[in-house]
């Protein structure tokens, strides 16, 4: 019988304000929002808990909530970045926000990437489409001079359908000049001015053939990409324990109460969204 009746309302968002808002893609389907905290206490609480790979529920009051992966690393500043694909009522309302507008945020939610387990490893980061946003947060985290020595080689493979849909263009362009990482970008079909890879991400991964020795691979992308990339990595020799992916499901509460994001007995929001392939293999095929 429960006796302590006064915990914080876990469904109450913290107030946030739009600091910057800009389109990522030429077709305006992807927009990035950088949000600042209205209350210092909320900012402190957020960054105490934040780990790349986590997500938040963004609220537009009167429209609802949408779960979105965090696309920034803590060291980047006192803001939280999200890149939002315009899909339905809430994401449309998020796209309509302008700098100075207020909104609500709950989070960080979920487990995030198990960075402590990856210490000293080579990281092979593989992303496709707008799901690359949390991998961008991970890459930014690793790139910081304070964090970089914790990891060995860093390889980023990022695919998009077309060059116009490539996110974080200027920043990623600057990664080619870094001597502490390797970058591979791909688009699905050839374009005249494109001088990087052309092809689907699983094929590009096979072509680049990253070494599985002392490495972990992190895969985030649309289900179809993930479906074909995971076996490609297995055939390259990555054991299931060294392959990680981040899952998405329709979510509401984000804290393991509303019931809808389960795969077997795991809740994506609470036990994930990051799982190793070994963990996924142990779950029923309900994805």
């Amino acid at each position: 019988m429960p006796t302590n009746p006064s915990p914080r309302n876990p469904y109450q968002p913290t107030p946030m304000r739009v600091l910057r808002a800009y389109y990522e893609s030429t077709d305006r389907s992807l927009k990035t929002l950088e949000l600042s905290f209205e209350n210092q206490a909320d900012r402190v609480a957020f960054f105490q808990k934040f780990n790349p790979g986590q997500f938040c529920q963004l609220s537009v009051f009167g429209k609802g909530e949408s779960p979105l992966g965090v696309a920034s690393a803590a060291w980047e500043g006192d803001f939280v970045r999200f890149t939002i694909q315009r899909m339905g009522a809430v994401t449309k309302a998020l796209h309509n926000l302008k700098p100075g507008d207020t909104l609500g945020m709950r989070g960080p939610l979920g487990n995030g990437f198990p960075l402590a387990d990856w210490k000293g490893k080579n990281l092979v980061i593989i992303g496709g489409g707008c799901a690359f946003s949390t991998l961008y947060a991970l890459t930014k985290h690793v790139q910081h001079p304070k964090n970089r020595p914790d990891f060995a080689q860093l390889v980023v493979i990022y695919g998009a359908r077309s060059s116009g849909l490539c996110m974080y263009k200027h920043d990623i362009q600057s990664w080619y000049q870094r001597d502490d990482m390797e970058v591979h970008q791909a688009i699905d079909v050839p374009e005249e001015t494109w001088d990087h890879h052309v092809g689907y991400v699983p094929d590009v991964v096979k072509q680049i053939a990253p070494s599985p020795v002392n490495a972990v691979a992190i895969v985030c992308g649309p289900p179809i990409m993930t479906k074909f990339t995971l076996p490609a990595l297995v055939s390259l020799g990555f054991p299931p324990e060294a392959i990680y992916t981040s899952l998405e499901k329709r979510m509401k509460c984000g804290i393991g109460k509303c019931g809808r994001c389960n795969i077997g007995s795991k809740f994506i929001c609470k036990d994930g969204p990051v799982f190793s392939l070994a963990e996924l293999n142990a779950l029923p095929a309900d994805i």
Partner: protein
Amino acid sequence: MKYILPKHELNSLLERWSVGHAVLAPQKVGAYTEFLPFGAQSELCLEEPHNTRFPPKALFFPQSEAILKYKRNTGQLENIEVEPEKRIIFGIRPCDAKAVALLDTVFAEGENQDPFWLARRAETLLIGLGCHEPCATCFCTSADSGPFNTEGLDALLTDLGSEYMVELLSERAAGLFDGLAHASPAQQKSAQTAQTAAEHAMPKAFELDGLKDKLDRVFDEEIWAQLAQSCLGCGVCTFLCPTCFCFDLVDETQRDTRVRNWDTCMYRVYSLEASAHNPRPTRKERTRQRLMHKYSYWWDHAGKLGCTGCGRCVRYCPVGLDIRAMIRKAGAYESEVLHAN
């Protein structure tokens, strides 16, 4: 501590409780019973063996509930505090009281406890009425419970004909039965006899031992499509289930309120994602989710079965689907079909 409550004194006892408590008790509304506030004019429905149609979980976790108020234009938030009245729920059946205790594992344990659930739970006493005459749809004895199970209850009544034997189960309810005579050894013995007789009157619906593993092993099999064949996907089994807790969060735009509504895994949109991908696209996957959640995943989450055998899903299914038969078939599928040859 065991007391004797003569039936003719029940109403005056409830009246006494009504000073300082809201007393809710099962009363007839049309063809069904419901938990309604007890008053001088109330006619209690305690003799009919069946349960209320609406599960008492709703008294703690309403079907629709505001969880946040906001000002749409300024983004200003107004927290909603639940200040529940002191309540006594009288005549709750053991299956439903157990369901409330099961839902504590969702809302009242671990991180992110639910303040709405907790506040109501802390102020509510559950006085149960055991089932000396279980229904044909009941199967609590097969579902790790029983017609006189005491889990979740503050006191349990056993019908002895012209009186009830009251078994006090918690400190919180200690004062409620002051002044009643103690039950004699003979009365305690006849209560025991009635309880055992009720338990024995219920046939075994399925064997729970090893069932979880059997179901886990047939997750990918066709059996679920067979079981779901006549299902209409109406969701009544989940809405009336005392342990189903899934909910949706929606903004009621006109009222500037965020509301939590019961939801059901039996609907297509429940798991439909923004990309149009649906991990449970047909009733096969949705039926499997409903049964596996209760009979497998609950064990992983809480170490308990997520069904109390109340029988509502059996009684109210418009096409007569019977969870007992579904579970029996799914449990036997491996040995009878897969390994038959």
